[in-house]
C-alpha cells in the first residue's frame, strides 16, 4: 500500500510536465488530461483512505522512502513520504476539491486560448501542495511550500497581459517570500537543535529541548504560516490575488495554499506545546486576523474581494484554534475541511455569477439574480448558510467547536479569545448576508457596459454547475458527519493529540450565544441591504468603511513603512557608500596619485639632475660609512 503514496504526487506532476512541455498539439485534449490526472490522484487517495480505515488507529501511518536526496555525513535529507490521518485528511481535501475545480475550469476557461497551460499550472499546484502535506521531513515540506508559492504566482498572474494581475502575482510572491524566510530559519534552527529535520525525531524530542529554542522555532514557523495563510501582518497579498481566474481563487482559498499554514502549525503541534508563549502568539495572530478579515469583507463591493476577506477571517479562526493547543488542533483541521467545501462552493458560485454577467465583479451592479441563475443561487445559498454557521450545516459545527475551545482556553485569555471569536461570527453573518442580498436579491441593477452590451444573466454550463452542487452537498453535511459521535476527533487524535477543553460556559450557552450573534449579524445586514434598495454607486461611508475598502490601510502602511522606509534606507546606504567607503578608496588613490606626480618630477631627463642625485647619493654613502666607522 505504501508504494501508492508516490503516485499521489506523481499523477498531477506528470500532468504538469506533459501539459507545460507538450506544446500546442495538446491544446484540444490538455484540459481533459489535467482533469483525469487530478481525478486519478483523488482515486489513489480514496484507495489509501479505505485501506487506512481497515487498520487500527495506532498503525495507520504509512511511510514510503523513495531515495536519499542529500546523503552527507551528519546531514541526511530524504525524499520520503509519510501518510498519517492528518496528511490523509489533507490529501482527500486537496485532490477532491481540486478535481472539482478542474472540472469547473473546463467550462470556465473554455474561451481562453491558454487553457492547456492553465491546467498545467493547476496540476503543478496540486502536486506541490501534495508534496507539502505528505512530506515526512521539514526540508521536503519546504520543497512543496516553495512549489505552492511558484504555482500561485503563475496562476494569480495567469492573465499577465493585465498589469494589475502581473503586479498582484508579484505581490503574492514577494509577501510569501517573507514567510518563506521564517520557514527556512525555522528549519535551520531545527537542524542545529535536533540535528535532523525529519518529523518523527524532531517532534518526539521536543521534551528535551529548552523552551527558549522551541519558542524561537515556533515563532519562525508562525511567520511562515502568516505568509502562506495570509494572516496579519502578511495578509496584504490575498485581496490582490483575486486578479487570477476565479477557479484559482477557489483553489487557493479552499484546498491549497492558505491551508498550508494551518497544516504547518498543527503538524508542528509538539513544538508549540513546548512553547506556550509562541502558542499564545499564534492564537493572538489568529484572533486579530479573524476580525481584520471580517471588517475588510464587510466593506468590499467586489464579490471576490469580499469572499477573500472572508477567507482571511475563516483562516484566522483556524489559526486561533491551532493556537489553543491540543484542545483546538482537531477543530482547526475540521473547520479547514468544512471551509474547504463551502468556500470552494462560494467562489465557484461567484465565478458562475461573473460568467453570466460579462465578468462584472461589482456587487452593486448585480441584484435580483436568483431568478436568472437558480442553480448558482441555491448552491451559493447553501454555502452561505454553511459559512455563517446556520444550525445543522457544516460551518455551525466546526465554528461552534472553535468558539467553545477558545472559551475553554481558560483565564482572561480564554474570555478574550472566545469573545473575539463570537464577535467574528456576528460579523461573518453580516458580510455574507450582505453579499447574498446584494447579489441575488433586490432590484436588478446591471447596466450596459461601455460598448453598450446589456448583460444577459444565464445559468452556467453543466461542467460548472455540477462541481458547485457537489460542494454544496459537502457544505451541508460534512460538518454534521464529522461532529456527530466525535468521528473527526477520534480520527485525528492519534496524530495531533486531544484534550477535552473545560469551558467555563456550558455547551448550550456557547451554542446559544453563537446563534444569537448569527441572528444579530443577519438582522443588521438585512436592515441595511435587504429593506432598502442598494445604491449603484457606493456611498462615501464612514471613516472605518473607507479604511476597510482600502484593506484597512494595510497597503498604505506597507508603502509608508516598508517601501518608503526601504527607499530611505537604501538612499542613506548609498550616501554612506559614496561618501565614506568611496571617500576612503578615492582618497587613498588620490594621495598615491599626488605623491607619484611629485616623484615623477625627479625624472626630468636632464643629465645633470641625475648627476646631482648620484653625487648626493655617493655623499650620503660616504658619510654613512664614515659615521659607522666612527661609532
Amino acid at each position, binding site marked *: 500500500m505504501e508504494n501508492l503514496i508516490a503516485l499521489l504526487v506523481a499523477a498531477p506532476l506528470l500532468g504538469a510536465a506533459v501539459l507545460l512541455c507538450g506544446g500546442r498539439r495538446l491544446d484540444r485534449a490538455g484540459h481533459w488530461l489535467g482533469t483525469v490526472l487530478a481525478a486519478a490522484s483523488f482515486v489513489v487517495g480514496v484507495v489509501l483512505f479505505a485501506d487506512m480505515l481497515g487498520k487500527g488507529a495506532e498503525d495507520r501511518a504509512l511511510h514510503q522512502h523513495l531515495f536519499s536526496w542529500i546523503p552527507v555525513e551528519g546531514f541526511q535529507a530524504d525524499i520520503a513520504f509519510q501518510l498519517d490521518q492528518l496528511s490523509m485528511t489533507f490529501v482527500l481535501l486537496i485532490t477532491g476539491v481540486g478535481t472539482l475545480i478542474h472540472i469547473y475550469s473546463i467550462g470556465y476557461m473554455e474561451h481562453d486560448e491558454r487553457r492547456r497551460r492553465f491546467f498545467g499550472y493547476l496540476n503543478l499546484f496540486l502536486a506541490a501542495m501534495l508534496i507539502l502535506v505528505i512530506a515526512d521531513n521539514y526540508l521536503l515540506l519546504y520543497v512543496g511550500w516553495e512549489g505552492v508559492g511558484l504555482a500561485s504566482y503563475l496562476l494569480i498572474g495567469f492573465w499577465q497581459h493585465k498589469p494589475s494581475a502581473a503586479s498582484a502575482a508579484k505581490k503574492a510572491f514577494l509577501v510569501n517570500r517573507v514567510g518563506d524566510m521564517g520557514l527556512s530559519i525555522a528549519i535551520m534552527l531545527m537542524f542545529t537543535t535536533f540535528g535532523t529535520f525529519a518529523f518523527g525525531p524532531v517532534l518526539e524530542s521536543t521534551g528535551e529541548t529548552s523552551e527558549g529554542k522551541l519558542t524561537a522555532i515556533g515563532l519562525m514557523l508562525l511567520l511562515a504560516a502568516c505568509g502562506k495563510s495570509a494572516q496579519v501582518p502578511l495578509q496584504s497579498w490575498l485581496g490582490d490575488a483575486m486578479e487570477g481566474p476565479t477557479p484559482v481563487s477557489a483553489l487557493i482559498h479552499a484546498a491549497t495554499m492558505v491551508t498550508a499554514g494551518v497544516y504547518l502549525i498543527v503538524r508542528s503541534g509538539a513544538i508549540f506545546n513546548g512553547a506556550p508563549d509562541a502558542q499564545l502568539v499564534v492564537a493572538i495572530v489568529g484572533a486579530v486576523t479573524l476580525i481584520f478579515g471580517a471588517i475588510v469583507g464587510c466593506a468590499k463591493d467586489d464579490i471576490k474581494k469580499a469572499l477573500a476577506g472572508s477567507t482571511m477571517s475563516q483562516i484566522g479562526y483556524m489559526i486561533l484554534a491551532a493556537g489553543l493547543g491540543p484542545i483546538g488542533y482537531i477543530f482547526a483541521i475540521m473547520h479547514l475541511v468544512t471551509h474547504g467545501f463551502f468556500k470552494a462552493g462560494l467562489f465557484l458560485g461567484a465565478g458562475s455569477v461573473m460568467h453570466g454577467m460579462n465578468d462584472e465583479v461589482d456587487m452593486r451592479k448585480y441584484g435580483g439574480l436568483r431568478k436568472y441563475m437558480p442553480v448558482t443561487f441555491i448552491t451559493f445559498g447553501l454555502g452561505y448558510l454553511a459559512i455563517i454557521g446556520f444550525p445543522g450545516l457544516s460551518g455551525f459545527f466546526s465554528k461552534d467547536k472553535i468558539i467553545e475551545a477558545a472559551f475553554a482556553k481558560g483565564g482572561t485569555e480564554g474570555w478574550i479569545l472566545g469573545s473575539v471569536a463570537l464577535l467574528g461570527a456576528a460579523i461573518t453573518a453580516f458580510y455574507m448576508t450582505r453579499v447574498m442580498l446584494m447579489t441575488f436579491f433586490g432590484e436588478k441593477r446591471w447596466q450596459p457596459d461601455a460598448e453598450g452590451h446589456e448583460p444577459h444573466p444565464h445559468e452556467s454550463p453543466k461542467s460548472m454547475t455540477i462541481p458547485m452542487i457537489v460542494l454544496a452537498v459537502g457544505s451541508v453535511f460534512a460538518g454534521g458527519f464529522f461532529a456527530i459521535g466525535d468521528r473527526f476527533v477520534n480520527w485525528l487524535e492519534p496524530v495531533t493529540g486531544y484534550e477535552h477543553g473545560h469551558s467555563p460556559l456550558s455547551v448550550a450557552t456557547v451554542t446559544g450565544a453563537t446563534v444569537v450573534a448569527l441572528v444579530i449579524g443577519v438582522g443588521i445586514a438585512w436592515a441595511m441591504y435587504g429593506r432598502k434598495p442598494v445604491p449603484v454607486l457606493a456611498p462615501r461611508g464612514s471613516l472605518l468603511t473607507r479604511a476597510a475598502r482600502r484593506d484597512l490601510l494595510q497597503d498604505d502602511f506597507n508603502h509608508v513603512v516598508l517601501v518608503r522606509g526601504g527607499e530611505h534606507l537604501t538612499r542613506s546606504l548609498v550616501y554612506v557608500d559614496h561618501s565614506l567607503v568611496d571617500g576612503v578608496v578615492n582618497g587613498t588613490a588620490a594621495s598615491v596619485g599626488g605623491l607619484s606626480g611629485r616623484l615623477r618630477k625627479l625624472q*626630468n*631627463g*636632464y*643629465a*645633470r639632475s641625475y*648627476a*646631482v642625485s648620484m*653625487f648626493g647619493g655617493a655623499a650620503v654613502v660616504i658619510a654613512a660609512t664614515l659615521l659607522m666607522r666612527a661609532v
Partner: protein
Amino acid sequence: MNPVNYLYLAALLFAIGASGVLIRRNVIVLFMCIELMLNACNLALVTFSRMHGNLDGQIVAFFTMVVAAAEVVVGLAIIVSLFRSRHSASVDDASLMKL
C-alpha cells in the same frame, strides 16, 4: 714634499670637475670635466700608492686611463651623432629619450 698635498689637489680637481658637470651645459665642456674627475681620481690613486709603498694604485690608474681612452672614443661618437641630429651642443636639449 708631503704627499697629503697631492690628495688636496686631487680633491680640488675632482670638485672642479664635479661642479663643471653639474653646472655647464656644453657637452664638450661636460666631457672635459668628466675627464678632469677621472684624472683627479688617478692622481689620488697614485698618491695613495706612493704613501702605502705598493704598486696596486698605480696599476689601477693605468686601467682607469685605458677605460678613459675607450670612453672618450664612445663619448665623442655619441656627441657627434647628437650634434648631427639636434644641431646643438647643449645637454639640456637631449632631455628626452627619443629624437
